[in-house]
């Protein structure tokens, strides 16, 4: 089987625009959560989210604030009208990832051997809602011709392929909060099977819109008790947690066949060593109480990697700051056995919030960067731990440690589970 490695990373998150600024703030334990600024959230129950700090003031950003996102640098105002924000985020993160990988295919063969697999949990929720209102108020003849292509989930992959001339497999994953992990795992398999030599893979999400916040509040998933102290709101494993905090952004990895990467002298971050998937067959929004779905996904990833539980050094947990945190924790303990005493696990959602379809992708990136820098990122706001566990949850401070193997977990509504294992290249 052809081996697959990570050669590029692009990040656009509530902690900032760019891979290194996001990672720096992660290791410092900063929170990217604040009051919602992109619409008036009065009366929504939840008034906080992890917005991308932007030059227009969104998410606490500004023209002089370090790490602020400037969409004008990605697309002109005319182009931006044709795409929803999740596509803009995907394009920005893909640009950074391809630059990082130094992969800008020019020959027809290189273009045809490079594909794109970027997913989203929900896609263009904002345009769907806005256009529905316009349809009702003004009738069918006033609907923009750009409405459908601005909202379709696979148009993130489509736009990235058009922008960079990438003519290989063009695909999109939609598995709610497991989207980013599935996209990376599936893209790696396309390379393994020979369908492509390089894949631009990940997830993007822009659901901080009125209907998105109202919808997640309605299904009792969002945090509602910390509207006055947003930086404290996302607190996985803490007794005071009461739901996830929505984030937005994108994470993109450039995945590449190992020999292809070596032959062109590419910088190699880590190997995509294993990937496992499972379904709960249990409930539309809750994981099965015994954590068996997540357990089987992790077990499958280990088997696929040809590794033992004792090889796992770090687990980037799904850890959404909901009741489900404990279920995942017990499943990881069960998988690791004695190794739980030496391994570390953390939830970076404590800082970024939950980026839904992009979460698995940014967390895969954090897992890879944890291997690069030999440090486990922290779980912040873990002040009153609910669970006794042998696992080091990296409470409130990053933990420098030897990390050869890192696993990233992602679980989604509908009972869909994915685990991706990354391994240091010896």
């Amino acid at each position, binding site marked *: 089987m052809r081996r697959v490695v990570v050669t590029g990373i692009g990040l656009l998150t509530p902690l900032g625009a760019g891979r290194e600024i996001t990672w720096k703030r992660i290791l410092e334990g900063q929170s990217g959560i604040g009051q919602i600024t992109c619409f008036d959230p009065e009366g929504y129950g939840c008034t906080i989210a992890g917005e991308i700090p932007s030059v227009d003031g969104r998410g606490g950003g500004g023209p002089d604030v370090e790490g602020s996102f400037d969409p004008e640098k990605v697309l002109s105002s005319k182009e931006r009208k044709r795409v929803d924000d999740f596509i803009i985020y995907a394009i920005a993160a893909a640009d950074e990832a391809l630059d990082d990988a130094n992969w800008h295919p020019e020959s027809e063969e290189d273009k045809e051997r490079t594909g794109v697999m970027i997913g989203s949990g929900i896609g263009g929720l904002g345009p769907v809602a806005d256009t529905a209102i316009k349809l009702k108020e003004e009738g069918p*003849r006033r609907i923009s*011709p*750009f409405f459908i292509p601005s909202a379709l989930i696979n148009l993130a992959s489509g736009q990235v392929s058009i922008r960079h001339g990438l003519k290989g497999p063009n695909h999109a994953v939609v598995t709610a909060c497991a989207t980013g992990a599935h996209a990376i795992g599936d893209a790696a398999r396309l390379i393994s099977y020979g369908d492509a030599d390089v894949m631009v893979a990940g997830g993007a999400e822009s659901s901080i819109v009125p209907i998105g916040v109202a919808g997640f509040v309605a299904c009792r998933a969002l945090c509602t008790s910390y509207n006055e102290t947003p930086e404290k709101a996302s607190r996985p494993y803490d007794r005071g947690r009461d739901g996830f905090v929505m984030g937005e952004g994108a994470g993109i990895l450039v995945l590449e066949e190992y020999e292809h990467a070596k032959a062109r002298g590419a910088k190699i971050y880590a190997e995509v060593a294993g990937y496992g998937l499972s379904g709960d067959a249990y409930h539309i929004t809750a994981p099965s109480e015994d954590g068996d779905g997540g357990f089987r996904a992790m077990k499958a990833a280990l088997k696929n990697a040809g590794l033992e539980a004792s090889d796992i050094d770090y687990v980037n947990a799904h850890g959404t700051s909901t009741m489900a945190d404990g279920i995942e924790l017990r499943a990881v303990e069960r998988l690791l056995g004695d190794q739980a005493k030496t391994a570390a696990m953390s939830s970076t959602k404590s800082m970024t919030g939950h980026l839904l379809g992009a979460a698995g992708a940014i967390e895969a990136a954090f897992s890879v960067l944890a291997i690069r820098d030999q440090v486990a990122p922290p779980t912040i706001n873990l002040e009153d731990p609910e669970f006794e566990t042998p696992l080091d949850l990296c409470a409130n401070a990053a933990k420098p440690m030897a990390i050869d193997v890192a696993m990233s977990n992602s679980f989604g509504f509908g009972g869909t589970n994915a685990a991706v294992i990354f391994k240091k290249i010896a």
Partner: protein
Amino acid sequence: MSDILERVRKIVIEHLDADPDKVTEKASFIDDLGADSLDNVELVMAFEEEFDIEIPDDAAEHIQTVGDAVKFISEKSA
């Protein structure tokens, strides 16, 4: 007529993010101003809104230049 031309030009410049100097009566939306077929649909919708008229699909197909739009709108509003 000149008033209609200026209003049409303004819409075209705004929607296509076009260089004002290039937005002449003879300018073709697609060939000269970088529009695609979806831009044309959007332009026609903008003309309908601005001039409070209805442009049927078969007529819209023949509006390819700034001049075509001015001519159609002038006849319609006359």
